[in-house]
């Protein structure tokens, strides 16, 4: 592990951190394995056989307890409980220790630790999300390869079902965290002029809960898989192999993480805004992240409840979902969709709002009708809790409620339409700068319209009788979640990449990769619409000849998507390491995160900004006050509100790039707090778009 203190450039005399200084992901894995072993021994000795020899739940009990051991051991090993324990013992942390926990002067090692700095957590989320997308995408390729022709049983139906379930849940987890994780953590606090999140340790906790849950989830592949699809409908899940235990332990862990980060983000946005940053001046992205987090905070405990009940059915012989013994299959479906429908907006709203945030920058216009956007978001959030049963139109549950649910479902098209109006209105007569973030926004408009219109068909009960459970539904939610939300996430990543990594994303190759994947995406999912309309059910590992052509075309499209995504990923990794150094504000944006130096200093702002207007005043006469909040002297009282006294010199940006051995001369220039674009041109690749050099002087005032 790369945890050894590679750069002991200790500014402070004695190395702080104590025990925390020695804990990292390596000790986490070690702790996890040890406790896993202990828990397994205990469970095997005491729980593997229940009363009577007809108890078939023993092995599930042992597996669940073993997984709890791993999760608990990992969290202990990485030091998640050190803070609470010290607090219980009455030993508060010293300033140096706080700074150590925030990863001050620790180079690359801080990314492998329980680091509290929101920027580190943001990068960790980004890497985690990309890893999950890679795994989930590979599984998608398995699915499409298996379905290339009828009867082409590359793996057989059993493995097929297992792969479908794993693909689904990995992608759902990844899309839930893909915007609120990286950008909600890295960008949002800077956007509101805060030095960190409200609860930095909870922030680290919400990330590190997911990390050990990933191997738990993947272990399902070796225990019969998740042959139920990601929805894990009971009682099919009661019947499923032990891979199901991995699924439900992952969901329980993940739900805790989502709830914690939701609470943290909400509290941060409510309490830690800069002076003058009133609610109506909040960047729209903050609205998106906060409302989605709030929605997740409400929805995910229900998911957890559903899975805890399922866990009891599987391990303790309860019958919550066993109809033969008085349980109900509709109980599971209700709990699941009470989470499931808000959940799609937890995914969608931040991605959409990322595009709304960058559209004014690239159109050089104010966001069109800010209040309409807020009303739209609020409308979606409000209605999203009242539409869940449209997933259950044809289940036979409460047929009399069909009409009301049809109404709420169709009503949600009105606030969603408002968001589209805001986006289109922002583009209208703008000087549209067609860089990758904006172009991804355009792709999102295209996909999202298709996803939205096909959603209208599904909202209609008679039509849903023909389409529910078919590949039409699969294509519909891929258009909204992958074509809409995920592309919004790509737009956000391309937009904030320079701020987060200190490098420019290679425009040419990024665009090639992105558009290749978009072309493939249209081919694949248009085919799925067609064969779905023709009557192919979803989640089938084989199909009659009628659907052969559509499936083959879909598979070819999927390979194009794969190629495009790999090009984009390669560009991303290359740019992160070798891309030209990014100026602090390459896009000429007005929001606060672009007014900080790149790399962003440990505490973001030397003096906390005071906000005097909103951030969308493109093309408007400057207000009397300086619109650029940085540099406005902060009240001493404001600065003292953070744990670190302002007297600590902030001139040394504590980014990985500056202190890690890989430091390049170009970025090292950042130590002098001068935007590093000056040295960047020397490293430029021939024939490349000299974006960085060109934009340097465009930096606002």
């Amino acid at each position, binding site marked *: 592990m790369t945890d050894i203190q590679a750069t002991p450039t200790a500014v402070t005399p004695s190395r702080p951190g104590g025990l925390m200084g020695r804990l990292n992901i390596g000790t986490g894995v070690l702790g996890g394995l040890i406790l896993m072993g202990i828990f397994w021994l205990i469970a095997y000795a005491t729980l593997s056989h229940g009363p009577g020899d007809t108890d078939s739940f023993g092995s599930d009990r042992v597996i669940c307890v073993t997984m709890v051991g791993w999760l608990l051991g990992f969290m202990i090993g990485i030091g998640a409980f050190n803070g609470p324990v010290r607090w219980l013992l009455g030993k508060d942390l010293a300033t140096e220790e706080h700074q150590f926990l925030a990863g001050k002067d620790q180079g690359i090692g801080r990314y492998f630790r329980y680091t509290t700095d929101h920027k580190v957590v943001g990068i960790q989320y980004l890497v985690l999300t990309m890893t999950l997308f890679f795994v989930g995408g590979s599984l998608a390729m398995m699915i499409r390869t298996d379905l290339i022709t009828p009867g082409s049983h590359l793996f057989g*139906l059993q493995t097929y*079902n297992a792969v479908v379930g794993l693909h689904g849940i990995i992608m759902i987890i990844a899309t839930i965290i893909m915007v609120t994780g990286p950008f909600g953590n890295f960008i949002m606090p800077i956007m509101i002029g805060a030095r960190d999140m409200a609860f930095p340790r909870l922030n680290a906790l919400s990330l590190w809960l997911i990390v050990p849950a990933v191997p738990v989830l993947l272990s399902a592949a070796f225990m019969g898989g998740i*042959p*139920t*699809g990601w929805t894990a*409908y009971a*009682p*099919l899940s009661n019947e499923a192999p032990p891979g199901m235990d991995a699924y439900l332990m992952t969901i329980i862990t993940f739900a805790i993480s989502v709830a914690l980060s939701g609470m943290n983000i909400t509290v941060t946005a409510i309490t830690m805004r800069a002076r003058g940053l009133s609610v109506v001046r909040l960047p729209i992205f903050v609205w998106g992240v906060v409302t989605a987090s709030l929605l997740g905070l409400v929805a995910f405990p229900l998911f957890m409840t559903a899975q805890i009940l399922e866990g009891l059915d599987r391990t303790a012989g309860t019958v919550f979902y066993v*109809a*033969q013994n008085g349980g109900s*299959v509709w109980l599971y479906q209700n709990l699941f969709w009470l989470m499931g429908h808000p959940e799609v907006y937890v995914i969608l709203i931040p991605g959409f709002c990322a595009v709304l945030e960058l559209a004014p*920058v690239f159109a*050089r216009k*104010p966001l*069109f*009708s800010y*209040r309409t956007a807020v009303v739209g978001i609020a409308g979606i959030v409000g209605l999203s809790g009242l539409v869940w049963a449209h997933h259950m139109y*044809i*289940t*036979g549950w409460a047929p009399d409620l069909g009409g009301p649910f*049809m*109404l709420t479902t169709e009503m949600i*098209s*009105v606030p969603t339409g408002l968001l*589209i*109006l805001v986006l*289109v*209105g922002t583009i*209208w*007569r*703008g*000087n549209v*700068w*067609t860089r990758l973030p904006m172009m991804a926004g355009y792709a999102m*408009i295209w996909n999202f319209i*298709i996803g939205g*219109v096909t959603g209208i*068909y599904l909202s*209609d*009960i*008679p*039509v849903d*009788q*023909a389409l529910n*459970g078919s590949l039409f539904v699969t294509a519909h939610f891929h258009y909204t979640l992958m074509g809409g939300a995920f592309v919004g996430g790509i737009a956000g990543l391309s937009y904030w990449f320079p701020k987060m990594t200190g490098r420019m994303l290679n425009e040419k190759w990024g665009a090639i990769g992105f558009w290749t994947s978009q072309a493939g995406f249209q081919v694949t999912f248009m085919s799925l619409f067609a064969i779905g309309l*023709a*009557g192919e*059910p*979803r989640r089938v590992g084989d*199909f009659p000849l009628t659907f052969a052509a559509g499936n083959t075309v879909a598979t070819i499209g999927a390979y194009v998507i794969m190629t495009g995504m790999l090009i984009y990923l390669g560009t991303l990794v290359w740019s992160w390491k070798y891309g030209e150094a990014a100026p602090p504000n390459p*896009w*000429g944006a007005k929001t606060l995160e672009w007014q900080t130096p790149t790399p962003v200093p440990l505490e973001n702002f030397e003096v906390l900004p005071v906000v005097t*207007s909103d951030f969308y005043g*493109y*093309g*408007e006469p400057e207000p009397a006050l300086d619109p650029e909040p940085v540099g406005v002297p902060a009240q001493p009282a404001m600065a003292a509100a953070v744990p670190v006294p302002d007297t600590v010199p902030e001139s040394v940006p504590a980014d990985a790039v500056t202190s890690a051995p890989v430091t390049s001369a170009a970025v090292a220039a950042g130590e002098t707090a001068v935007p590093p674009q000056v040295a960047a041109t020397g490293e430029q690749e021939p024939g490349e778009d000299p974006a960085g050099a*060109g*934009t340097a*002087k*465009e930096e606002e005032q």
Partner: protein
Amino acid sequence: MTQTTEAPPAAPQPKQRSQTRQVVLMWVVLTILLELFALFVPAHLMGAPASNDMIDIENSMTVFSVTAAPVAALVWAIAIYSLLRWRHRGSGPPDSAGAPIRTNVKVVAVWTAVSSLLCLFLFIWGEVELSAEQSSAAASNGTVIDVTGQQWAWTFSYPGAGGFTSDVLYLPVNKPVTFRVTSEDVVHSFWVVQLGTKIDANPGETTTASVTPDKLGTYAVRCAELCGIYHAYMEAKVHVVSASDFRAWLKSNKAQG
């Protein structure tokens, strides 16, 4: 700075007016193309309907597509036009900003009103269809068939004809049938594709669905809810036959049973 600053609604310059005209033109062209698609493609992909319900469903598909086409065309027209005419190429941000339009109350109001009306139309359309379907189901006094889903087979019982069971579904043409659907194990979904009938088969519950097939032919029952390893193969054949053929089939089965 207040958010609601109206865009100065100064008299539009000629250039701006001609741009608006071009966008509208593009909208009209796109709308026509999308309408052609909407009229002919979605319903065609669903195949020939074999019941009144399926005819209604395919009509609804067409109506929704036709309704949605202008909206989609408007958004896409503006997006495409902005790329053609308002595009700024270059490595740096544009030198000049776009028109500082903060909002336009009229546009927002019209948009909200139109989308609300469209939404209301959708709802009323759906309700009318739904109540028509339900009333015909309530009035139907036809053949009752007990459908049982189990991993991974469908069986069909005819309680009105001595209660024999079959693995193939026979239906009389132009006569209402009511399916009483249940499951022996997990959740399945009983889907007769060309009849537009779908209802979940739940363990411990009986759900019902009614339909009147109106076209002779052989169709497929598929399971539309993932139900385990052989979910893909949980299919059965449906024969919609004339009344006399149906009676003959019932008789031959009764004789066997």
